[in-house]
């Protein structure tokens, strides 16, 4: 038993006992370089492929970067800005906080997939097993991440600022510079959130910061949407506008620098290197699977799923009449957080579809449809598990059609519940639009679940003036459900309400479902 003032954590290595890394760095790097050359030679590749890859990435960035920047600026220009300075400030705070919160969520997900501070199983064994200080080993990639996040943040913020100011020409250089510098600093926050989620002791704090940012964003958005509430949310601008701006700038600088410092100096030492290495290995395997056409390859990227509700049992009453629906309900009870999040997302999606049907822009209908499609993935867990089986339905009686119908019951009911929640009190057009989109996303889910491997024909080289586009086609195949739902929702909005539109959309949904069932039957 250890007695003393401080408990020493397991696996702790006294920094004084570590080997200084700098003198080993060059040696480790030359070893890595040699191993890379040997591996490339063994696989018949060119060791200089990475140089060509870097060249290609730079070329693509130079060609498409300005196009993306202009697109972002145009999107920002379409955002309606209130006339009052408080309203503008609220929109700015809401946009920034929501963007940081969403990127923070992505950082939390990345932490489960072995990022953002990545390492490999070999490095975890040979360089991060205690002999060197982790922050020395990981310093270069931490700095690279900090600079990369700053560049991406500045890129997006300057485009947004230019759009809001009325275009790149109209925007003052000072505003663009300020927006870029501020975003470069704030971009360190979600990066640090992701890296903190990789450290067991700081995971909870990372989740807390992300939720705080999202809550701040929602409150500010609410304030921007209800101008009457703004004076209560912010002090009168005339009394201390200048001081407020100075405090805001100081806060951004302090938060940004503190996040960067955490990223480079603190978090690497607390990283769970084994979990990060395992996540990285899973991600690499999934990437190879995706390139090989296996759409199920991403299933394990975030690590094994955790199932709760182990005391829950199959509902007896339903088990007799609809056993697969009983199974699916039990599955959802074992993933309560995902089930609740999916219902919320679905309801928000239906709300957006209703807004679009009430005369809102097409992008709202598309976003709502995609939110419903995303939510339907959780509702269709049973169907996807069925599709992933070596012999789908081998244990069950009846045809594949019957099994798919059994698994479609729970998603259909939950989709209707979400649609009802989102379109409560709506006009008939809004309700019909929500129901049509529900039918579309359910049909698309059956269609997508029916095929887990890309058709071999997609790998046929497709030569174009820009090179082989077969990988682009493969990417489109993976995103086929999203693309079909987005395109159909956009067409629905353009066509407007009407019996012909409804019939066409229902026919499309039925066609997708039938195609999915046929694939199940052939499996």
């Amino acid at each position, binding site marked *: 038993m250890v007695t003393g003032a401080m408990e020493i954590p397991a696996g702790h290595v006294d920094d004084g006992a570590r080997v200084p890394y700098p003198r080993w760095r060059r040696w480790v790097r030359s070893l890595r370089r040699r191993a890379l050359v040997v591996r490339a030679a063994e696989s018949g590749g060119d060791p200089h492929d990475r140089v060509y890859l870097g060249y290609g990435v730079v070329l693509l960035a130079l060609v498409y970067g300005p196009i993306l920047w202009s697109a972002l600026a145009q999107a920002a220009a379409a955002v309606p800005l209130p006339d009052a300075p408080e309203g503008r400030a609220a929109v700015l705070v809401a946009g920034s906080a929501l963007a940081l919160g969403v990127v923070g969520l992505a950082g939390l997900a990345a932490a489960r997939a072995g990022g953002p501070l990545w390492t490999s199983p070999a490095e975890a064994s040979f360089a991060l097993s205690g002999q060197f200080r982790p922050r020395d080993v990981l310093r270069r990639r931490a700095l690279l991440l900090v600079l990369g996040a700053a560049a991406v943040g500045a890129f997006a913020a300057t485009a947004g600022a230019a759009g809001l100011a009325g275009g790149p020409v109209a925007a003052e250089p000072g505003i663009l510079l300020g927006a870029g510098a501020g975003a470069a600093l704030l971009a360190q926050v979600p990066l640090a959130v992701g890296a903190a989620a990789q450290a067991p002791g700081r995971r909870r704090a990372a989740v807390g910061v992300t939720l705080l940012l999202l809550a701040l964003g929602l409150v500010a958005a609410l304030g921007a949407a209800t101008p009457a509430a703004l004076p209560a949310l912010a002090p009168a601008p005339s009394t201390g506008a200048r001081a407020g701006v100075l405090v805001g700038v100081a806060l951004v600088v302090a938060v940004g620098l503190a996040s960067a410092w955490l990223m480079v100096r603190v978090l690497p030492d607390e990283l769970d290197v084994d979990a990060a290495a395992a996540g990285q290995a899973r991600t690499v395997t999934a990437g190879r699977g995706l390139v090989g056409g296996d759409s199920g390859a991403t299933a394990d990227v975030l690590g*094994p*799923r955790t*199932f709760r509700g*182990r005391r829950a*049992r*199959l509902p007896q009453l339903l*088990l*007799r009449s609809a*056993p*697969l629906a*009983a*199974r699916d309900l*039990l*599955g959802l009870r*074992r*993933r309560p957080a995902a089930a609740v999040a999916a219902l919320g997302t679905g309801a928000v999606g239906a709300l957006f579809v209703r807004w679009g049907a009430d005369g809102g822009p097409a992008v709202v209908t598309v976003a709502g449809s995609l939110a419903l499609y995303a939510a339907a993935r959780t509702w269709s*867990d*049973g169907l996807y*598990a*069925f599709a992933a*089986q*070596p*012999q*789908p*339905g*081998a*244990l*069950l*009686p*009846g*045809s594949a059609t019957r099994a798919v119908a059994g698994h479609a019951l729970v998603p259909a009911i939950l989709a209707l519940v979400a649609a009802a929640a989102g379109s409560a009190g709506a006009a008939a057009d809004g309700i019909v639009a929500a129901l049509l989109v529900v039918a579309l996303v359910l049909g698309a889910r059956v269609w997508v679940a029916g095929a887990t491997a890309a058709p071999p024909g997609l790998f046929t080289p497709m030569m174009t003036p820009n090179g082989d586009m077969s990988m682009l086609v493969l990417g489109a195949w993976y995103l086929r459900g999203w693309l079909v739902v987005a395109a159909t929702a956009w067409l629905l909005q353009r066509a407007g309400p009407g019996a012909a539109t409804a019939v066409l959309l229902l026919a499309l949904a039925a066609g997708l479902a039938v195609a999915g069932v046929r694939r199940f*039957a052939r499996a």
Partner: protein
Amino acid sequence: MRVAGELLVDVRAATRTHGTVQVLAPTSLTLGPGEAAAVVGPNGSGKSTLLRLVAGKDEPTSGDVRVLGLPAAQARQRRREDVALLLGGLSAYPDLTVSEHLRLVASAWAGRHPGPDVETALAAAELDRVRDQLPGELSSGEGQMFALATTLYRPARLVLLDEPEQRLDARWRAVARRLVGVALDAGRALLVATHDPDLRADLARRGREIELAAPGPR
């Protein structure tokens, strides 16, 4: 119901060739209700290929494979309720426990399930200890025994098993042989590819042995 002279499996001079490699030499076999056949032979002799042909998951390069009176590929579509398969993994749900899988099977087949009840089946397979575990939480051997027990728990006239003894220790191999024996007692036809000499002997006593030739030089 047993029909006099009925053939559940009828394989006539079936071969399978991948490219230039013949993975199954000409093979013939017949199997009636309640009969067993052990498919044996060294690795690469075509045991799994033969089972895949009978399951209708692959087409013979030459010869004929009929199951329940239909070409195997059609039988897979039209008579899937009569054929239980354990070829390369169990069709399990990741969020259901071991006992819930058996309960789901019993409920899904409702009046057509001849029993036994879930508790008895778990006890017979010696899976009581892991009854509340999810498939992903089972050890390799437990997972294999779960797969075998669940496959044999669903009603079927014909059962195809590909090396059911794999990853099982000596005690559980004995349990697996007992489960296979119970399935035969219930009047099912079993076609089993195996490397286990005891299971092979058991099946040979109750039916026949089909020895596939060793693969030629490649």
